[in-house]
């Protein structure tokens, strides 16, 4: 799972409708995909994704991951035009893969496991 996906996932459990984003992310194992395997760097795509990102949620999540990544406080219009910034964002959002870990809902504390890079968002019938 990549951080771009984490940034759009909310808890989907029945009755959990407020304060259910962002899910608290614990990454126990992660890897950077090599260039052949990762989606190609494409500034137009990253600019599109920038329009969608909840920046505060991304900053907050990254700050808990101990990856040594420091994101600017705000996503300014100038930054979105900055090649070096977009390259960094490409690595952070698209190339880095969380292989094992879990996500915990800040509201209901439901745990969603991540295994083999795949988050398990499957609910039990009584959670729907």
């Amino acid at each position, binding site marked *: 799972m990549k951080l771009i996906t984490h940034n759009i996932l909310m808890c989907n459990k029945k009755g959990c409708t407020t304060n259910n984003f962002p899910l608290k992310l614990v990454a126990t194992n992660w890897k950077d995909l090599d260039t052949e395997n990762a989606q190609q760097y*494409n500034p137009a795509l990253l600019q599109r994704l920038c329009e969608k990102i909840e920046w505060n949620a991304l900053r907050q999540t990254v700050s808990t991951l101990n990856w040594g990544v420091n994101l600017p406080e705000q996503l300014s219009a100038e930054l979105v035009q900055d090649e070096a910034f977009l390259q960094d964002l490409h690595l952070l959002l698209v190339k880095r893969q969380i292989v094992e870990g879990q996500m915990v809902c800040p509201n209901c504390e439901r745990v969603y496991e991540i295994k083999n890079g795949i988050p398990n968002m499957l609910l039990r019938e009584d959670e729907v």
Partner: protein
Amino acid sequence: MNHRPEQLAPADVFYNEEEAKKYTMNSRMIEIQQEITERALEILAIPKHSPRLLLDIGCGSGISGQVLSEYDHCWVGLDISKAMLNVAADRDVDGDVIHADMGHGFGFRPGTFDGAVSISALQWLCSAEMKCQNPYKRLNKFFSSLYACLIKGARCAFQFYPSSPEQVEMITNSAMKNGFTGGLIVDYPNSQKAKKYYLFLMAGYSEEIMNEARQVIMPRAKTGDTDSEDDSD
């Protein structure tokens, strides 16, 4: 004669490890899936060199997703078959895959996806996977949460294998009830083998998307002969 897999067993049972492997090694199957995905993209009518964030519902092993990646789109896929998703993960597909049941609706932030595709998956929604499940409820849950996670005016192209006209009606009714407009596109209606059903949907109206789409193509059913010979789920 093809047996409809959705009538044999639920999707997560049917697409076990063995089926998943068979499915991903059948080159004709892959080719058909790719062709259908290309057609779905045509229906989405996204202008050239405009990469978008797309949702792939029933993404399986990521065959359709790879076509989306070739067009530089970023995608998130979901599927109920863990075995299929593991194949996708092992192949290091560009998009992200999530283990989820489309009949439960999905927890995505509202207004994020620019569009959605689904290849050969929608018919699974109509067959209850467990006794306690109600297909009407599942369809409603699916379309309402789909509508919520799309941007205004986003387009969807869902290719599926309906089992009856009633099933088509059940699906389209649920989509319309949840705010979508659109309709059914039937490609090659006169060819028993090449005939393909696409549910084309729009999540509300956006002038910008409408104009973009007009510049690309209006969705029209394909007719006449085709070199696509066989039909498979």
